[in-house]
């Protein structure tokens, strides 16, 4: 017997979303207080109280703040007292994992209403040192500098030429900032204009290779809380129509970055390509660019953001560059990407990957506010990224009308 006969046991909807206003060091709150802000907002958004919550799922990257088991201290702000409580951590993908875990927990029938909470107070630690700590202490830790790499820029430049590549990634950057300017929760809002592209391309300080400081994601303090409920409970509770979780997939890669040989005789498949391919195949999606109305992508830098559009949408050649160059990824464009401003604008790491589906939910519900894309928004995609190029990919739907097929 194989997986063909197994379906999702029951439907799961998102009934509440909350975020803090993400920022640099929140000196005015301690960690549980900051988490509470997001929890409070999510509960208000759903119109419920902690009494309605069965289970809390919590996560972050603890080596940033150097708190062991932070969910214990955070009981003061998460409302987990007396509740079932899980803690999951998977590096940068944590937030997305929390979302998937909440979905699994509700779909299983074990819990009816689950709240996922991701947070980070990056300014309370040293982010790059924290990420460097991920590598093998016997070897790579001494050679690596956190998440900073010039390899992606190198890839894109090799393929499309320096001028075009640099311009496209800066165009992506400006678009992300324009979106961030419309998102009151976003951390960094620079007010960049398209006519600054030439200047920024040459003058923003370099970090590694052609990765410049302006391309790189933010380091933020912030929290996000998302409430998921079973179909029955979503009908009874929740002020707004639930947004349905259709499916999710997690694809990791081995412990080291064995991807830098630059030899196409030995191709390597990136996890986002594998995740997209498998998730779409088992859901019958053959043209993702047509199918999805919005994509909240975990874009750690504008080089990766630009590059990954190709495989997330199963495009060929320079189609993804043209989407960016023609500004089709903007709010109002053909394929809006990161109407929230994305990770480059806001990155409280433990929350970042949870903010992606949270923002996609807001878009589908139509109440994202100033950064709302014109509707109707029916099919949403959200991704998480972390570790050694891992991907989590989540599909969200406005209506419960997709064919609940057995999973092939």
């Amino acid at each position, binding site marked *: 017997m194989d*997986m063909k006969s197994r379906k999702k046991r029951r439907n799961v909807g998102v009934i509440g979303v909350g975020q803090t206003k993400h920022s640099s060091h929140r000196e005015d709150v*301690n960690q549980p207080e900051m988490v509470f802000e997001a929890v409070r907002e999510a509960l208000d958004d759903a119109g419920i109280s902690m009494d309605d919550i069965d289970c809390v799922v919590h996560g972050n990257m603890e080596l*940033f703040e150097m708190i062991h088991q932070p*969910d214990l201290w955070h009981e003061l702000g998460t409302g987990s007292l007396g509740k079932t409580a899980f803690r999951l951590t*998977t590096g940068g993908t944590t937030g997305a994992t929390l979302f998937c875990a909440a979905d*699994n927990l509700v779909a299983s029938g074990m819990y009816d209403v689950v709240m996922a909470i991701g947070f980070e107070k990056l300014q309370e630690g040293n982010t790059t040192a924290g990420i460097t700590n991920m590598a093998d202490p016997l070897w790579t830790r001494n050679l690596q500098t956190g998440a900073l790499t010039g390899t992606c820029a190198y890839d894109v430049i090799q393929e499309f030429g320096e001028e075009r590549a640099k311009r496209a990634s800066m165009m992506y950057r400006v678009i992300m900032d324009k979106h961030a300017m419309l998102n009151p929760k976003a951390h960094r809002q620079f007010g960049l204009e398209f006519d600054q592209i030439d200047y920024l391309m040459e003058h923003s300080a370099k970090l590694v290779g052609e990765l410049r400081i302006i391309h790189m994601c933010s380091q933020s303090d912030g929290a996000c809380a998302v409430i998921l409920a079973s179909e029955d409970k979503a009908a009874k509770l929740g002020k707004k129509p639930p947004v349905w979780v259709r499916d999710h997939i997690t*694809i990791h890669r081995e412990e080291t970055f064995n991807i830098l040989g630059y030899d196409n005789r030995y191709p390597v498949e990136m996890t986002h390509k594998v995740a997209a391919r498998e998730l779409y195949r088992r859901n019958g999606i053959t043209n993702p660019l047509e199918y999805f109305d919005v994509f909240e992508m975990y874009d750690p830098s504008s080089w990766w953001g630009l590059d990954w559009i190709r495989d997330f949408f199963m495009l060929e050649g320079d189609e993804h560059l043209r989407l960016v160059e023609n500004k089709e990824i903007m709010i109002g464009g053909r394929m809006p990407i990161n109407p929230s401003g994305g990770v480059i604008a806001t990155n409280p790491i433990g929350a970042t990957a949870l903010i992606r589906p949270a923002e996609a939910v807001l878009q589908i519900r139509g109440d994202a506010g100033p950064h709302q894309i014109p509707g109707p928004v029916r099919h949403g995609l959200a991704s998480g990224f972390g570790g050694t190029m891992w991907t989590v990919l989540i599909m969200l739907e406005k209506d419960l009308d997709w064919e609940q097929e057995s999973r092939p």
Partner: protein
Amino acid sequence: MGTRVAICAVAQIKNEPDIWYMRFQGMLLECLESIIAATGVTFDKEKGIRDIVTCSDDVFDARTISDNGMTDVVGAHYRGEEKIAQDGLNALGYAMACILSGHDDVVLFMGHCKESQSESRHMCTNLAYDPFYCRPVGLDFLTANALQARAYAAKTGLTDRHLAEIVVRSRRNAAKNPYARDNKMVTHEEVMESPYLADPIRELHYYPVTDWAVGMLLSCEERAYEFTDRPVWITGFGNCMDRYFIGERDLASPMSLKKAAARAYAMAGIEDPARDIDLFELNDACAHHLPLIAEGIGIVPEGKGPAWIEEGGPDKQNVNLSGGMLNGNPIMLGGVARAVEAYLQLRGEAGQRQVEGARRALAHGSTGGAGQHQTVVILEK
């Protein structure tokens, strides 16, 4: 669609004081090979393992994203992996959800911890406390447990002699457990003279530094017999979080423990645990935990722990025949070790410790100082 999840295979290495000669990857690889050999399971994306649940800790591993280091040896290359960052017993509950939700057919669980790696596990657990008040005051899991031990002794009259009995018994039982940490046998006098770590907890009352790795294969009901002819079913799961500030908790009678047990019993349809369950594996990091947890899960009347010890209650009710955490399992995996013993007992593979005809077992785990978070799992043949 099936309603039960089974444990089809368990693999472990021996609990040891200091596995200096292997990295955790090597420790886990042995477990992986054993599970594959025992079940024939593959990593085929359609028919085999495509999602893995792990358990490890960043602070104890001194490694950000500690599960990243495990990726290869748990077979997570181009598969999914999700790390439970609490006592690994919770991973059984989570893996259960992954399977019952329909997302996965089979889930591999792998956990490791090397307490010997850092200079002091107390420095590590001190970091669980807020940096402003509890941490500078010196709270860590040891001192929190000591406060609890004092509260419990004041409430119930538990004495140094009871504690000695608990320790002596733990080592005696562990001697029959080939995977338990090798500790020397001690006498009651030696325990009662052992130096204080944190009054009233003496050195011999506290679980010793231990390194360990473990793996399990879990399966949906429909496919369990593909992997084993004697699946052990997880029929009950419950966990619960208590208050952070230690002064606000009932340390001697934790609310979170009672609630976790109640949730597990409800799921498993158990009304009288003492009657309905044949053996109990309780996560006793500290000697006083044994009677305290026994009361909390409802097999000993509240406040009667010491009498239970005097009357040989643990032996009569088949409690901690493995030697318990007290004999030595690392933090993060104490609860898993309890589940492993329960599994072996229900399959009749517990050797000299075997409870004849055991049909149902309870495994308990806890996370945090004085067990702020508690987990209870019911397993059945």
